[in-house]
C-alpha cells in the first residue's frame, strides 16, 4: 500500500469512526434518559437499556433531585435547563395533578416549550469545526409529516449569523431591466404563498453506500425535514425586475461567513422557487436562514441558500466552490456529475428502526416517511421478508408534492427474524432503487464510501428474534 493510500485510508477511517462515536454518545445519553422514565411502555421504552453508565446515571439523578428541590426560582437558571432536555424547562412534577393547582398561565412568558419528558434532539456530525458542520433530525421520534422547527436538520458552512431583519435586504441585479433592493417589509407586501416541502441534504446517507455504518435512522436518514414555508414566489420578483433575453442562471448568495453561493437554473426560478420568511407559522429559525432563505422544492438542500442577500441573474453558471469542488458526484472513471440538483424518490421506515427493541411478537404499526423531489409520492410498499414480497402501505392524506408523506403498515410479527424494507414510487413512475442498483449505475470510485451524495436506495432494518432492530444491507 502506498503512502497516499494509507493516508487516504486513515482519513476516511477516522472520519467514519468520528461519526460512529458521535452517534454512540447520543445513544448512550438517550438510553440513560429512557431508564429514568420509569415503567415506560411507549416507543421510547423500546430502546435497549445499557447498565454500563451506572455512576454517571446516579450522579445525574442526584443532580436532578437537587434541581427540583430548589424549586421555581431555579427554573430558568442554566443549571436547571441543563438538567432537562433542550427546549424544555424543569417544572416540578405533582404527585397527583388533580389535587393541586398546576403552574400559572403565561408562566412561560408567552412562548411555550416542550415537556421535560421529551428528549428527541438533533445530533451533530463530528466535523473538525462547529462552524462548518451539520446536525440530523431525530426521525425515529417523528410523527406525521411536519418536522418541528427546532428539530429541522442543519447544514452550515460558516456558522449561524444573527441578522437584524430591520437592516437586512435582498438585491436582485445582473441581466435585468431594473435592479431592485427589497427590505423585509417590502417582501412581505407581495402576494404570499405557503407550501409544505421537504428539504433534504444531498449528503443524507453518505456513510451507507458500501456497508451499513450508522445505527439509527437519525444517522442514516436524518438530513431531511419538512416544514410549511411561507414567502413570495421568485417568479413575482423576476417579473418586477424584468429578466433580459439570454439570461439562464441565477446566483443565490447568503449573508453568512461562508457567503454561501449556488447557481440555480432560471427555469427553476420561474417554476416553483420561493423566497421564504416563515416556517411552520412563525418567522424562520436563525438556523434555517432568518430572516430570508431561498426555497427550491425538490433540489438538494445546499441550494436553498439561507440568510439570502443577493440574486444575480446571468447567462452562465458561476462555477462557485460549492458547485464544483463540493456537491458534485464523482463516478466510476473519474468524471463527476455537476448540477445534480434533484432529490430522487426515497423512503425509510422510522418505526421500528435501528437500535430499537421490540418487546415481543404481536402487532406493530410499521411507519415511515416517503418523499420525492419530482412530485407526489404515488405508492409505498413494505416488505417484512427482505424484499421477497411487498404489500401496499397506507398513505397519510393529504399527499403533497415534494413533501414528506407518512406511510403506515399493520404488521403482525411472528417473533422470527425479519428484514423490514420500504420502497416508494413517485408520480413520474420512478421506483426507489436498491443501493446495489445505484452502485451499479455510479460505481464506488467516488471513494471507499461511494459517490457520497444522492444515495436514495432502499433501507433495510433487521429485526432479530430477541426484538433488536439493526441497520443491514440486503438486496
Amino acid at each position, binding site marked *: 500500500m502506498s503512502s497516499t493510500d494509507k493516508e487516504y485510508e486513515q482519513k476516511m477511517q477516522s472520519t467514519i469512526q468520528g461519526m460512529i462515536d458521535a452517534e454512540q454518545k447520543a445513544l448512550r445519553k438517550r438510553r440513560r434518559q429512557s431508564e429514568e422514565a420509569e415503567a415506560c411502555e411507549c416507543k421510547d421504552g423500546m430502546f435497549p437499556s445499557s447498565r454500563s453508565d451506572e455512576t454517571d446515571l446516579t450522579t445525574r439523578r442526584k443532580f436532578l433531585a437537587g434541581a427540583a428541590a430548589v424549586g421555581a426560582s431555579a427554573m430558568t437558571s442554566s443549571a436547571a435547563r441543563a438538567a432537562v432536555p433542550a427546549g424544555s424547562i424543569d417544572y416540578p412534577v405533582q404527585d397527583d395533578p388533580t389535587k393541586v393547582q398546576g403552574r400559572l398561565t403565561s408562566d412561560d412568558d408567552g412562548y411555550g416549550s416542550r415537556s421535560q419528558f421529551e428528549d428527541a434532539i438533533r445530533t451533530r456530525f463530528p466535523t473538525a469545526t462547529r462552524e462548518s458542520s451539520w446536525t440530523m433530525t431525530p426521525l425515529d421520534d417523528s410523527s406525521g409529516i411536519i418536522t418541528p422547527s427546532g428539530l429541522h436538520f442543519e447544514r452550515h458552512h460558516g456558522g449561524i449569523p444573527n441578522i437584524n431583519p430591520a437592516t437586512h435586504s435582498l438585491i436582485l441585479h445582473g441581466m435585468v431591466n431594473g435592479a431592485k433592493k427589497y427590505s423585509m417589509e417590502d417582501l412581505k407586501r407581495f402576494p404570499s404563498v405557503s407550501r409544505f416541502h421537504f428539504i433534504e441534504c444531498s449528503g443524507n446517507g453518505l456513510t451507507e453506500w458500501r456497508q451499513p455504518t450508522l445505527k439509527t435512522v437519525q444517522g442514516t436518514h436524518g438530513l431531511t425535514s419538512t416544514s410549511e414555508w411561507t414567502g413570495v414566489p421568485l417568479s413575482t420578483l423576476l417579473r418586477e425586475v424584468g429578466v433580459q433575453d439570454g439570461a439562464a442562471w441565477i446566483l443565490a448568495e447568503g449573508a453568512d461567513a461562508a457567503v454561501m453561493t449556488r447557481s440555480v437554473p432560471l427555469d427553476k426560478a420561474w417554476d416553483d422557487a420561493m423566497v421564504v420568511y416563515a416556517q411552520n407559522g412563525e418567522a424562520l429559525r436563525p438556523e434555517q436562514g432568518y430572516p430570508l432563505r431561498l426555497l427550491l422544492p425538490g433540489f438538494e438542500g445546499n441550494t436553498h441558500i439561507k440568510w439570502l442577500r443577493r440574486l444575480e441573474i446571468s447567462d*452562465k453558471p458561476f462555477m462557485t466552490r460549492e458547485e464544483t469542488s463540493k456537491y458534485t458526484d464523482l463516478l466510476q472513471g473519474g468524471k463527476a456529475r455537476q448540477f445534480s440538483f434533484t432529490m430522487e424518490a426515497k423512503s425509510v421506515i422510522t418505526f421500528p428502526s435501528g437500535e430499537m427493541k421490540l418487546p415481543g411478537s404481536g402487532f406493530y404499526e410499521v411507519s415511515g416517511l416517503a418523499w420525492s423531489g419530482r412530485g407526489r409520492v404515488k405508492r409505498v410498499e413494505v416488505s417484512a421478508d427482505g424484499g421477497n414480497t411487498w404489500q401496499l402501505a397506507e398513505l397519510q392524506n393529504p399527499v403533497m408534492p415534494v413533501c414528506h408523506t407518512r406511510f403506515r403498515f399493520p404488521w403482525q410479527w411472528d417473533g422470527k427474524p425479519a428484514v423490514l424494507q420500504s420502497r416508494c414510487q413517485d408520480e413520474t413512475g420512478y421506483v426507489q432503487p436498491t443501493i446495489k442498483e445505484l452502485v451499479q449505475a455510479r460505481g464506488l470510485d467516488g471513494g471507499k464510501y461511494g459517490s457520497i451524495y444522492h444515495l436514495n436506495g432502499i433501507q433495510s432494518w433487521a429485526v432479530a428474534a430477541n426484538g433488536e432492530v439493526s441497520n443491514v444491507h440486503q438486496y
Partner: protein
Amino acid sequence: MYINIKLKSVSTNWLCGAVAMAISVTVVPMAIAGPYDFGSTPTAEEIAAIDIDVMPDGRGLPSGSGGHAAGKEVYAAKCMACHGADFAGVAGTGGAALLGGRGSLDSGKPKKTVESYWPYASTVFDYVKRAMPFNAPGSLSDDEIYSVVAYLLGEANIIDKTATLDAKSLPEVEMPNQDGFISDPRPDVFNYD
C-alpha cells in the same frame, strides 16, 4: 384571494323591482399581476459592495495583481495554520488539502484538491475572496488574493512560478480537471412500471 361582499337590504333589484332582499355575492378578484413597484433601486455602490463573484471567463475579477513570491508570504501568514506547510491540510482544523492528488480521481481512492479536482482558477479566487481565511473571512486584499492563487497554482505546477495573475491572465489558466465534469443524467436507475 377572495373578496366576500355581502349586500344587505338592497332596495332596488332589477328583476323584482321594489322587493327588498338580502343577497350574498362572492367575487373572485381580477388577478393583480403587478408590477407592484415595492422596494427601491439600489445604488451602484450598494451593488458593488456585495457583488463579489468571479466567473470562469473572468467577469467580476477586480483590478490588481499578484505573483508567487508575495503569495508565499500571504500563505504563510494567513493560510498555512489550517492548510499546512505541505498543502495537505492540518488535521483537526477543517483545513482541506489544497494540492496533490492529480490523477487519483479514477483510482477508487480519489483525493479531491484544488490541483486535482477544481475546474477553474476563477473558483479559487472567488472562494478565497468570499470565505477565506476561515478566522477572518473576506479580509484579504485583491492583490493578496491574486498572489495566493498564483502561489498555489505555481506550487501545483499549473502555472509558471514567475507568472503574475491579474484580471486578464487568471481566466486563461487551464486547470487539470477542467473537463472532468458532466451534466446530470438522472434518473440513472430505471424501475418504472
